[in-house]
Structures are given as structure tokens and as C-alpha cells.
């Protein structure tokens, strides 16, 4: 398994936001993470991406311990993410945002650029072409030079996905990627997620749009009050009584 979450807990004071969560995501798998508001989905993503440290449990990326590492080291293990409240670099252009995303993949030493060597210029052209290709993948190639802060909500979300893909992550964490998007944009994100998985990347998808989750995910884990209440293939999860109760409430 590419990403293993083993008995992970996180408490904020007395609040147990995530408790004893265990599941794993394989290579090329799209794994959905759903649950009612406040179930601990975003906290779990923050734990995986190194923004928070778990109070108990282990997180493994490709067999290496990722819990307790600073978030730039987690990224170096091959985990990048998008944010629920979009966090682009607003004064940089869409293209430059994606170029920042390529930071880990680029290996041009600074001295080479300082000496104006042609190898540095070649590397830069390559990075720029890859960034444009990523923007084309999210259908934003014609907006490449626009300041990220001026883009529409849906466009910003797609730039953020392209930026996260810039590092060629092994695991891509998406936190509500379709929030605020129109149906056409949602469809394009759905096909993008499938395309990313076909390339062998794993995707961990937090999403409230249940039809989308049912459509694109290979497996689903359902959280409620920080605990896993169900897991498995989309069809099984949809019929699970605990999931139905969590979403609709129980009859009194």
C-alpha cells in the first residue's frame, strides 16, 4: 500500500477530532473520504500532509514514516495537497503558481543559474512547458498569465490542483476540490481525478458531493465523530446502515 494510516488519533485538548483511524490507499487508487461536517476529514488530511502531528498512531508513505515530519519533508516523500479554503499565491500568475508547485521536481542548482549557464535556461524552459501542460490538463492554458487572485473560484481550485500535481506526487490529497464549482467544472475535475489515478498516482479525496464520490472512487472510508464507521466499495458503503444513519439521522 502506498499510503497507510494506522491507528491515527488526534485530540485538540479534550476534543477527539480523529480517533483510531486505520485505512490504506494503494497505487493508482482513488480513495474517497466522506462524512458529515465536523467528522474529522480535513483534520485527517492535515495529519497526512504534516501540518498537524498525530497524538497516536503511524502514517506511512511508501513504507516510510511520515507522521511527525515537517510538511515540506512529507511533500518530499511524495504527498501534496489542495486546501478546502483555496490557498493559492494570489499575486503570482496561474503559471507561476504551478511553477512553484514544480519546486521538488526541479533539480537546477542555483549556481548554474547564477553563472547564466545554458543548462539552467534549458531546465527553466522545460519547467515552464510542463507547467503549461498541467494548466492545459485543467483547461486553463488561456488563463496562464492571469494573476491567481483574479481568477474565478472554480478556476482557482483547478489551478491549485495543477500546482499540487506539479511536484508529480505519489499521493494527491484533495480537500473538497469541487466546492463552489458549476456542474461542467465538476465533470472536468472528475475526469481529471481519474486521469491522475491512471498515471499511477493515488488520490485521497475529501468531498461532500456524494454522486461525484460514488462515480470516481475505487473505495470509500466514512468518518463520523472522528471514527471510521464504514469502508469499502462505493456500492457497499451506500447501502451501509451506519452510513445512512450518520447522514440522515436515526429514527427516534
Amino acid at each position, binding site marked *: 500500500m502506498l499510503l497507510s494510516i494506522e491507528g491515527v488519533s488526534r485530540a485538540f485538548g479534550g476534543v477527539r477530532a480523529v480517533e483510531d483511524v486505520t485505512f490504506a490507499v494503494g497505487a493508482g487508487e482513488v480513495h474517497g473520504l466522506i462524512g458529515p461536517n465536523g467528522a474529522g476529514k480535513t483534520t485527517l488530511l492535515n495529519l497526512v500532509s504534516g501540518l498537524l502531528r498525530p497524538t497516536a498512531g503511524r502514517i506511512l508513505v511508501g513504507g516510510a514514516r511520515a507522521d511527525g515530519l515537517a510538511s515540506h519533508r512529507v*511533500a518530499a516523500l511524495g504527498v501534496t495537497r489542495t486546501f478546502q479554503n483555496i490557498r493559492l499565491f494570489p499575486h503570482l500568475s496561474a503559471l507561476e503558481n504551478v511553477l512553484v508547485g514544480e519546486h521538488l521536481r526541479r533539480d537546477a542548482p542555483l549556481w548554474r543559474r547564477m553563472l547564466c549557464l545554458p543548462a539552467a535556461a534549458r531546465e527553466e524552459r522545460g519547467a515552464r512547458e510542463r507547467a503549461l501542460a498541467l494548466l492545459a490538463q485543467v483547461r486553463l492554458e488561456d488563463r496562464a498569465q492571469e494573476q491567481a487572485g483574479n481568477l474565478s473560484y472554480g478556476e482557482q481550485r483547478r489551478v491549485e490542483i495543477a500546482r499540487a500535481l506539479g511536484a508529480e506526487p505519489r499521493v494527491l490529497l484533495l480537500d473538497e476540490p469541487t466546492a463552489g464549482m458549476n456542474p461542467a467544472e465538476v465533470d472536468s475535475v472528475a475526469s481529471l481525478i481519474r486521469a491522475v489515478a491512471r498515471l499511477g498516482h493515488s488520490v485521497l479525496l475529501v468531498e461532500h458531493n456524494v454522486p461525484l464520490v460514488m462515480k470516481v472512487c475505487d473505495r470509500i472510508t466514512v468518518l463520523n465523530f472522528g471514527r471510521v464507521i464504514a469502508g469499502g466499495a462505493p456500492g457497499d458503503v451506500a447501502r451501509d446502515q451506519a452510513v445512512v444513519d450518520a447522514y440522515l439521522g436515526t429514527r427516534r
Partner: protein
Amino acid sequence: MENLADLWLTYQTAVAFIGVNALLALSVYATLCCGQLSLANAGFMAIGGYAGALLTLHTQLPFALVLAAAAALPALVAVPLGLPVLRLRGVFLAIATIGWGEVVRLALVNWDYTNGALGLVAIPQRAGPGIIFLCLALALFVFWRLRGGRTGYALEAIREDEPAARTLGIDTTAHKLAMFVLGAALAGLAGGLEAHLTFMVAPSGYGFARVVDMLVQAVVGGVAHFGGPVLGAAFLTLLPEGLREVSHLTGMEPGPLRLLANGLVLLAVILFLPNGLVSLPGRLRAWRDERRAARALVD
């Protein structure tokens, strides 16, 4: 021809000071461009100035090596200082680094070996506009090459949103520390140059007011581009020259007049040109286009 030579003789000191001040403004810009407001640079400048002065007075080292030492010593000091203080954000970093500047100044005041508050005098004049602008050109080259490359984008990302930058694999601590060290080296270099331009170093020259001068010059010039601090330094260094006439006419003391003018310029820039003088051509162009568009609409 003779007039030109006279003009040069009159103004070469002013030109030299533009170069020194530009280096200092750039040293503040180095940390500002990745979002860190560090005011430690008067302290680093003092270390560079004193190191340069002592080396020239007590050894036979060539001037180039003296300058290299004046830049290297504060850079070395910046590493152990930067590691803890760069964990602070915003105004807390500013306060901690102001503290550092005062520590250096007070240490120099109480250090008998360097004559305490009187400082060192009779330093041979080795620096002129030539060497100063060579150093400035070198610094500008470094900033020019940084911009638009992998490291340059990483710095901009840190300025915009540090945690987000970290989730993309950017080691923000290392980048911030590197720019802190670069700023220290530039401030030290400027300190070394100034010591060999004015024949003397004294603790009073490296107080809080000095680092505020650097910051004001950087902000007035604009910190969105490395050209801004140079422009700001040139403008605010030349301003007193123009004010001399004003002080003749009005009978105001030149000293207070300079402070008044600096304050007014800073206020005007912050209110009307938040991106500094360097953004003026772009703003004028935008304004002209707007007027043209409005007129076309009326016609």
C-alpha cells in the same frame, strides 16, 4: 569639460553615498522579499564597518580582502542569530531584530579596544564611487538571477503563504535563513565601504535610526522589484541636496527639514503609490489608458 569635472568633484561623495545606501536598502529587501521584516541590518552593518576598519588599521591586507571579510563576518554571525529569531513572525521578528541592533551598538559603546563611544578614526580612504558601484552591480546581479528561477519563485511563495509553500516541498526555514544571511552580508559590505569612505566608524552611526533609514528607502522605492530599493536610496539620498536651496529660502534648519521631507515622501508613497516609486511608470501608463478609454466612451 572643466565644468563637468567641477560638478563631479562636488557631487562624487553624494554619488558614493547613493551606492552605499542602495546596498543597505537592498540588504533590507533581501529579507523583505520573502515576507520577513527584519531590522537587524544596522547591527550587521556595524560589524562589517568595525571589522573592515580594524583590518585596514592593523593589517596590510588588500582592500578587496578587507571588504570580503566585512561581508563574511556578519554573514557568519547571522546564522546562529537567524535560526532562533526567524521562527518569529511579523512584528515579533522586527522587535527581536531591533533588540539585536541595540545589543551590537551598546557592546561597541562599551568596548575599550575600539575606543568606546568615540569609535575609530583616521581610517585611510580606500572606497570611492568605482568600487562602491562595482559592489552594487554585483548585488543587483545576484538579485536579478534569483528572480524568476526556482529559488526566486520559492521566495515569492514564502512571502505569499508560508504554510502553503511548505506543503509544496519548499524548505521555508532554509530559504528564509539564506536571505537573512545574504542581507547581513550586504549590510556588512556597505558598512565596510562606508568606513573607508568617511574615515571613521562610531557606534552612534549604527543605531535604530539607521535601520529605519534603510527600510524607508526600500519602501519608498518599492519592494516588488529589486530595482525599487536602489531607486528609493538614490531619491532619498539626493533629496537633501535639493532641500538645501529650500532651507536657504525659508531659513529652516536643514536637519529638521530633511526629516520632515523624508516623512512626507514616505507618507505620500504609502498613500498614493503603495508599490513604491518603481511602480510609477506603470501607474502613469494605466492612468493614461484609463483616461483615453473614458474619453473614447464619451465620444
